[in-house]
């Protein structure tokens, strides 16, 4: 495709390098993957040569497609690409508003509401002069005028990613009361920051389930929480239901949030959420908004879950059982939206039923399939 080749060779290489890293799972963690993606996209956009919006969009899309195909289970990569595309389109429309008149039709009326609402939105750009597509005298004029604004937009996405933990933990003390008993699972950086921030103002207890199948990462979480001065109990996964009657709140992390308000979270989350529902205990999920995925039907696919190493469950030297038994070690659980009470994100708290609204605001419909 011509637009792809117009990007310089080095940005193409950056995409390939990141794709290789993702394929080999050398990038660990959703936030790390998202950060690397933004940096690569920044390179791609700065080196890209384009003379209209469609070319730029297809350049970004093809880079995004390569990255997503390298690691389709890491949804934050695709989400970041979609977010950048959304910002690109927004900046473009703000900049060219003087030249184009919005047309109104019944279909637009249905999808966008009443006409006067379409004309709102302050211009965030300082572009003076009117942007023209297809300026034949200087094919780079369009790109030159738009690039600084795009760089700003991408920087905005980067800043949001870098301050995720602080923003999620901002109102931690309002969510946890003194002398409460909180249950959590495994090790999530977001939840860890949240709990430690709350501990500055409140005295409470945390029960951590050790999540045996993930190399006991619950133990690291318990260690880090107790060194922050929080009174912590470490329990085996099997006692989650038994202890639930003593628990005031369940706080979980998530791997990805789906469009219907459900989520993929580490194995054990489904147990904790169901046990909490049986005891009418609130389930609260701390998560950055970059994890919200515009995909609706992933939960139908068994293969959408990632699978871990079966030898963590049943090692080869355990002899007789190994060839008589099929061992499956799913890495994530799908938790239904009915079991979750609220998502605490870096941009406010939301119930599962309004996740689709956040999606409509953050991403464009045409980017759902990259």
């Amino acid at each position: 495709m011509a637009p792809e080749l117009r990007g310089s060779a080095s940005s193409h290489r950056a995409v390939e390098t990141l794709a290789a890293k993702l394929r080999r799972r050398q990038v660990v963690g959703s936030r790390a993957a998202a950060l690397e993606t933004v940096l690569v996209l920044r390179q791609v956009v700065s080196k890209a040569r384009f003379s209209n919006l469609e070319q730029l969009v297809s350049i970004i899309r093809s880079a995004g497609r390569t990255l997503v195909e390298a690691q389709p289970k890491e949804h934050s990569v695709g989400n970041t690409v979609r977010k950048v595309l959304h910002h690109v389109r927004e900046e473009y429309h703000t900049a060219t508003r003087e030249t184009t008149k919005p047309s109104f039709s019944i279909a637009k009326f249905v999808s966008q509401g009443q006409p006067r609402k379409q004309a709102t939105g302050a211009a965030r750009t300082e572009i003076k002069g009117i942007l023209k597509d297809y300026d034949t005298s200087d094919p780079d004029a369009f790109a030159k005028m738009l690039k600084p604004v795009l760089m700003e937009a991408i920087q905005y996405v980067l800043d949001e990613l870098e301050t995720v933990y602080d923003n999620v933990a901002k109102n931690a003390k309002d969510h946890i009361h003194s002398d409460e008993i909180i249950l959590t699972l495994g090790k999530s950086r977001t939840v860890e920051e949240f709990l430690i921030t709350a501990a500055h103002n409140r005295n409470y207890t945390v029960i951590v389930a050790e999540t045996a199948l993930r190399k006991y990462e619950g133990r690291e979480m318990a260690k880090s929480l107790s060194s922050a001065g929080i009174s912590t109990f470490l329990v085996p996964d099997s006692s989650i239901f038994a202890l639930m009657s003593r628990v005031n709140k369940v706080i979980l992390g998530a791997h990805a949030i789906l469009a219907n308000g459900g989520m993929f979270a580490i194995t054990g989350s489904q147990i904790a959420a169901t046990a909490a529902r049986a005891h009418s205990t609130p389930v609260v999920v701390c998560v950055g908004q970059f994890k919200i995925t515009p995909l609706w039907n992933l939960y139908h696919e068994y293969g959408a879950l990632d699978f871990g190493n079966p030898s963590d469950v049943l090692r080869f030297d355990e002899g007789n059982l190994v060839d008589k038994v099929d061992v499956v070690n799913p890495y994530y659980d799908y938790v239904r939206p009915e079991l979750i009470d609220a998502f605490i994100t870096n941009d406010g708290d939301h119930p599962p039923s309004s996740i689709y609204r956040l999606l409509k605001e953050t991403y464009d419909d045409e980017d759902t399939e990259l």
Partner: protein
Amino acid sequence: MDSVVTLRPPDKASALARFDIYPAYLRRLDDEQISTPLAAILALTELIENSNADTMFELVKALNDGAEELKRRASNPISLNAGCELFTAFVTLFPHDSANFADLKRELVRQGQKYAVEALTYRRKIAELAVGFIKDGSVILTHSYSRVVMQTLLLAHERKRISVFVTEARPRGLGIKTAEALTAAGIPSTVILDSAVAYVMEKVDFVLVGSEAVVESGGLINAVGSNQMAIIARAANKPFYALAESYKFHRLFPLSQYDLPSHHSKILSFPRPETATSLAKDEHGKKPSVRITQEQISENNPDVDYTRPDLISLVFSDVGSLTPEGVSQYLVGMFAG
């Protein structure tokens, strides 16, 4: 659809003959592909063509009168209502800077016709969206006959293996039409009794139905039997999906089944008790038997029912996949504020 629009000059005597909107509406319905809300919108555009209103106020009044007329005479007013309200709201809010009212009328008619053409592509769009939820080897349960569901199933059949159970949907029996069309297309399908829905529910992967209207609460108005199916699907933990084009979103908020505009006093009424004389024993001392006919049964039973939003898993529409709560967002955007 012709794009050339002519307006009758207001001073001709023929224009004084009242434009009868109901036949225009029926004429539009002759086209198999046009659904009732679209036919209503097209009938209203014809009304604008034939109207001699000079101000927006008169035009809107004429539209409202036309809509009332259609509602009075049509047998199933709900989805028709949705179309009328959408078009009337659009006309009221249309930003116009032309001083010439005739130009504005022409533009409105053009917009209405353009929308009708575009709306015919919505079924395909919805089918593409819904096919993503249909896994290979799915067993699907559907109700009565719906063009949107037909397109979805035919599209799914091109790419995956599916099999379909269709309820008979008495008294109209439209389910048989669905099964015939599906079998002709090569999809394994069979008609089940309306009373056998609970019997078959365990074998089914999910339920897929069309819609007459989707209301503001997120609930569904569809052929009678849909509510039953949704309750049974919920009891058996199966997903219940509704397919609805966006012009079927309607600003109703029914609080119960009997709150629907289609409910009238004859439905579920008990027949008048016979007077003593007519039930007098005849000469052999036997009471005359009471005969209940199929027509009486059809008259006494509802055509549509209301399904609560908490029983519906997702609504697939041309504006995207929506949770039932998401529908009200569009309605508020159009009609409120």
